[in-house]
């Protein structure tokens, strides 16, 4: 495959992406390709711009400069209607699950089906219960309110909401943060399985290496708004890259300088 083919067949193609907040440059020229059906994990310390990258792709934030293409379609500067169209391809699991606390669990899971796909309530509920089973939750959870669930359970419901519309692209924002190691592993398993079952293209951001190893086909490391290394997950232990080495061994000394202020 030539470079040209690789670029045109990429599900998500990002070129020269810039984003600053006032003086602080958060994304400083990101180039990234994610192939169809590939699971990419972006690693990096806190405040390196991982979340901002996802939010730019989702259109929640407008990049200052650069191009984002999804299935070859330019999505930066897309109008509201076009954006809603593109969003139908997406599912996202948020860091704090971001469940709607005014709605019961099943309506959270079925939200995309009810609103965007215009399913009837009975059918949507049945689909929601099915989806809950896929993330390991029984039908008895369906009528609870999100506030009654533990953090791990909320993550599962969030994952259910993300996959319920069978999206082509899945985003995971720090999926294991705040969970105990066992629950984290359960969530990782569920993510890996869901992505495989849907045949979806996935981007996850995390600083949890156990999680990255489990769900990634390929890993990219972000530092100071740039991709400093990317490669297959198997190569991460002998990347020969001082940034990656410092990060995976968790050393305080090395080329990575800690930023005090959040992005």
């Amino acid at each position, binding site marked *: 495959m030539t470079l040209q083919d690789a670029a045109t067949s990429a599900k998500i193609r990002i070129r020269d992406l810039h984003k600053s907040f006032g003086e602080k440059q958060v994304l400083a020229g990101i180039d990234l390709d994610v192939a169809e059906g590939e699971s990419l994990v972006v690693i990096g310390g806190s405040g390196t711009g991982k979340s901002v990258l996802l939010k730019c792709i989702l259109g929640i934030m407008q990049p200052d400069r650069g191009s984002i293409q999804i299935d070859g379609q330019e999505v930066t500067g897309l109008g509201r209607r076009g954006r*809603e169209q593109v*969003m139908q391809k997406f599912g996202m699991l948020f860091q704090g699950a*971001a469940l709607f606390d005014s709605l019961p669990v099943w309506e959270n899971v079925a939200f995309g089906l009810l609103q965007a796909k215009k399913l009837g309530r009975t059918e949507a509920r049945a689909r929601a219960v099915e989806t809950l089973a896929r993330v390991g939750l029984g039908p008895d959870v369906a009528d609870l309110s999100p506030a009654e669930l533990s953090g791990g359970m909320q993550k599962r419901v969030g994952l259910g909401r993300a996959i319920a519309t069978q999206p082509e692209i899945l985003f995971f924002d720090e999926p294991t943060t705040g969970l105990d190691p066992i629950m984290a592993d359960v969530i990782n398993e569920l993510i890996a399985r869901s992505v495989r079952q849907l045949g979806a293209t996935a981007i996850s951001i995390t600083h949890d290496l156990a999680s990255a190893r489990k769900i990634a086909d390929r890993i990219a490391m972000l530092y100071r708004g740039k991709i400093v290394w990317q490669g297959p997950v198997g190569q991460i232990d002998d990347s020969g890259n001082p940034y990656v080495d410092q990060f995976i061994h968790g050393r305080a000394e090395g080329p990575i300088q800690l930023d005090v202020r959040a992005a």
Partner: protein
Amino acid sequence: MNPLAVIGRLFLGFLQAIGDLTLFAGRAVAQGVSGPWYPRTIVRQMIDIGYYSLPVVGLTAIFTGMVLALQSHTGFSRFEAQSAVATIVVLSMTRELGPVLAGLMVAGRVGASMAAEIGTMRVTEQIDALTTLSTDPFKYLVWPRLLAGLLMLPLLVLVADVIGVFGGYLVGIYKLGFGPEEYIRRTWEFLEVQDVVSGLVKAAVFGFLVALMGCYQGYHSRGGAQGVGAATTKAVVSASILILTANYVVTEIFFSR
């Protein structure tokens, strides 16, 4: 720093806030009207604003009507014009105190809770989550609240008018020695349709403003629990100021006709 520069900066900030707010309201109305509509959310908001505000607004109205009767009696009895008490009560309630007091009470009750709810949704990324589920937050969150405020406050004010007049009636009958028939006759005697209508128009404007400030401040809240608290305060204060300002403007429009 140059004091003139400070004044200039404050003024520019003020203009920018007005511009932001206008764009926000315009976007909400344009997006909301073009649909899809969310009838369940609209009904829930209407119940919350209309039905659950009844006790607060009713209590405010009855005591206002009562005190109006007492005070106007004190004043008018000094030049033998006690018979005007019923007219004063009904005109004050319908034209002015009904809408303004109901508006202020609803700003405290509903505006604050809207700002807190939407603000919490903002800081817990629920608003971003809406976007990823192909749902426009302006259609789903803001427009139903604006519409509910616009429709329900006039109904609340109508109830407040009746309760306020009833408060005046109670004091008039049991304290000031009016006959029941006489009081009711005098209540109707000089009341015109426009008195009630102008009050209801005010109520619709106030309801829209209260919901708008609740949504606007909540939508733009930043930085966790403290940010949500600040948004709540700002929503109530700004809605109250806007109500009092708009009250003059609407009165002026009706008065000059």
